[in-house]
């Protein structure tokens, strides 16, 4: 860790500690992990911007069907490329300490593929397709499933889930917190 320490000033660490759910040590550890993704770049510039392909080398993101969406949601330049600060934000949200509401917020952004701030039918379809991977649900099953989801959650019956509706579901789901989590 001694090596990592030299890259940050005490103030930066204090900032990171105040602004994320991590302690200083965890911030340094996160930086080690970040550095491991592309040692040659991060070595010179601790806050280097890594392209999405590099970020997706992170094991949990690599196999995650929403890996690219996660990168997009946290990228400050909105193109999927992440700086260390973006990465730290990402890990902070996925950490144990982050409250459910914060996680729900980001989950919503991850699932919202077309970016219209609503989870419409097309969004849900894409989520399901990514979840089932190589297997495909038959068209009638898919329709049935999406209809079921909307029946459960779409309270105002406008054919799409707004953030408030989404948060309502997440509030009722006890599994969400344990699954929407990446251990550093």
């Amino acid at each position, binding site marked *: 860790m001694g090596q990592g320490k030299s890259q940050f000033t005490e103030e930066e660490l204090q900032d990171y500690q105040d602004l994320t*759910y991590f302690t200083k040590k965890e911030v340094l550890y996160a930086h080690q992990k970040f550095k491991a993704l592309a040692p040659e770049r991060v070595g010179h510039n601790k806050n280097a911007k890594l392209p999405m392909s590099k970020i997706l080398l992170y*094991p*949990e993101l690599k196999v995650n069907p929403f890996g690219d969406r996660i990168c997009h949601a*946290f990228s400050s330049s909105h193109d999927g490329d992440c700086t260390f600060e973006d990465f730290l934000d990402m890990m902070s949200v996925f950490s144990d300490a982050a409250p459910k509401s914060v996680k729900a917020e980001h989950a919503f952004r991850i699932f919202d593929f077309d970016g219209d701030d609503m989870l419409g039918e097309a969004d849900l379809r894409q989520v399901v397709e990514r979840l089932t*991977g190589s297997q495909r649900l038959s068209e009638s099953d898919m329709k049935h499933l999406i209809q079921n989801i909307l029946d459960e*959650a779409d309270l*105002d*019956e406008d054919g799409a889930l707004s953030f408030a509706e989404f948060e309502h579901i997440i509030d*009722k789901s006890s599994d969400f917190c344990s699954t929407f989590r990446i*251990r550093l």
Partner: protein
Amino acid sequence: MSGGERKVKRHPRGQGWEEAGGEFYQESYPGGEAELEAMHQNPSNIATLLPSKQNRTATYSKMYDAKTTMRRRTANRTANRAQYQTTARRPSASAATAAATDVASMLPDLSENLSNEERTWEEIMQIKALPVSMAQKKEHKAKLQSQTKLRLQGLEQLKWQRRKMWQRLRRSWSEAYAKMELWRHSMKEVEGDFGTGVVAYFLFIKWLMFLNLGVCTLMVLFIVLPAVFLKPAQQFPECNLSNNFTGQGSVECCSAQYANTTSEPAENIFMQFIQGRGIVEHTQAFYGVYPNVELTLNSAAWLSYDMPLAYISLSLVFMLVSLAAIVKSAAKGFKERLVEGEGQFYQYCNIIFSGWDFCIKNEKSACIKHKAIFNEIKASIESERIEEERLTRSKEERFKLFSVRVLVNLAVFVLLIAALYLIYVVFDFSAQTQTDYIIANNTLLRLLFEFLPSLCVVGLNLVIPIILGMLVRLERYSPVLIVRITLMRTVLLRLSSLGVVLLSFYRQFNCDDPCRPEGADAKCKKPLCWETYVGQQFFKLMLVDFLSHIAVTFIVNFPRGQLAKYSHNSVVAYLGEQQFDLPKHVLDVVYIQTLCWLGSFFAPVLPLMASIIFFFMFYIKKFACLVNSKPSTIPYRASRSNSLFMAVLLLSFVVMIIPLGYTIAERTPSKSCGPFRGLPSVWSVIVRTFVSSPAWIKHVVFFFTTAGFAVPAFITLILCLYYFYAVSAANKHMVLVLKNQLVLEGRDKQFLLHRLSQIIKQQQEHHKAMRAAAQSAHMNSTDISSST
């Protein structure tokens, strides 16, 4: 004069406020005009502009802007007012002061807008929850820090400092804890491959280990250390066979007799150790050696330590601590279940939105997870169909299935009875043959017969669940129900086998104490110190169980798994492939814990042993999980599996309390050993202590048992119950009402939006028509002008 002036003065200010309000609205939702433009272009887009439809990023930035502009506005306004005051200065001094005071009273309280240090600090702590990028967060923090703020004074400053310190302390504690946290890395490894449901199991093992470790510490502190280091308060009389009171059959002589018994000298220390005999028997590990007298705490000898009381209290404390720990853990799960409440309604959302384990990092497991989610979706869609089918099932079919289920249940029942009878017979056989001359002389044979009962129990526990698993398939239940039913049947087997073990002990011991004036009954198998004997049996059961886990995991399942991995033969692969079957593994650890509970009264070493076993079990199960098996295709959910663990544990706890309570309340303790020698029952220690306690305690307890206390208490409890019932019913009703309201509002909104977009469309058309008309009029006029 000045009053009139003031009135005039005030008027524009009121207007200003209104304006400011309007501006505030505009500023808090800036870009309104642009949005209106967009709306004009596509009226159906209006819905997305509603504040409720936007997530917090958008609303946050607006709110933030609004807040800053608010601050700016107040500042501007104060400046304006100052200007105004200077221009409106009157020559008359009194009027000037009046105006000044007036203005001063009109001035907004600056301290309201200036946040104090604590509030700023709180706000900084809140930033982390904002869904914006780090750069923005930093900027925000810097802004907050650079703000002029009030210093807190006196007590408030102190309070704030204390809060800050607390947080710093908590942070450093969590940092230290994270460093020390046991098995953190292993958990991550398991999580990466098997998901959070399985990790919950490993956390459960850890939880059990710490529970036992805690109890073990208590035991060492309160009974082992005093028993080793403290001296008896009074010299107790020597055994004197000629004396009437201390002669043959008396507690003293029996104790002496027991202390002098040593097992066969031929046994080596290892044998003694694994059987809990010989030297080991006479250590604090077992019930026998604990003294039945008060011990002196200090040389003054008036402060004493009541060993029997400490012993029984600690057993009770162990039970209470376990119960509290289980209930606390279970209550958490229960609360989650309650929140899930209408859980069934959110079944699909749960699969879709919290189905993926974000911790998975292994490609193979990800593939399996994809499959599992696919299957779950399929199954839940299917189950809807099955439910419909079930309602339309023909009578004949129903009858067939019903009879199959009855038959299977009957078979299970017979199987259980047979297993229990076998255990019973083997115990009897083992007890009878131990006195046999040939066996007694052959160490190996003796050892085999010694361990025969334990081996039998463990063997049956291994074999019968497999048969049960095959039987349950015939019954055609839904997958979830299959898991639960098999689990319950297996729990029943394990618990009742333990019950039979205890029962066969008690049948053997159902005769007078062997230490009596007439000498031991030849037919009676009761050992001198039966409690220690029972303790030894539990010790052995636990040991054999532990060894069987090692054997099964490393000697049987490991080669199986390897064969499956490297063989291309499909039959071998089928036989060798193992899934990590969670319920079975849960039973394994719950069983050990049950043994520990049952046996700890007879052998205080058991909690320590259980913690050590759990420590190793973690590694054994990790090996079984990571090396031997592949992830199960049944998705285990963390919340649900945790409540399953606790349910099983609670069940075995309740069942186990019955025989233990019987032992403590009814059985006569041995005369020759232990802290309760010579007493009619263990419980009588408590009675004795109560009788000798100060009068006021007795009075209080007696008061608790009178009607004067019981009736009001009963009524109060019922009232409380009713009150909470009423509150929960009201809440339920409220939830329903609110939900309906939400739906209605949603519909209203839909309706209004629809109307609005219609109006906009109409307007557009109207505009178009007007424009067209104007154009045609223009054309006409040009036509006319050209024609003229």
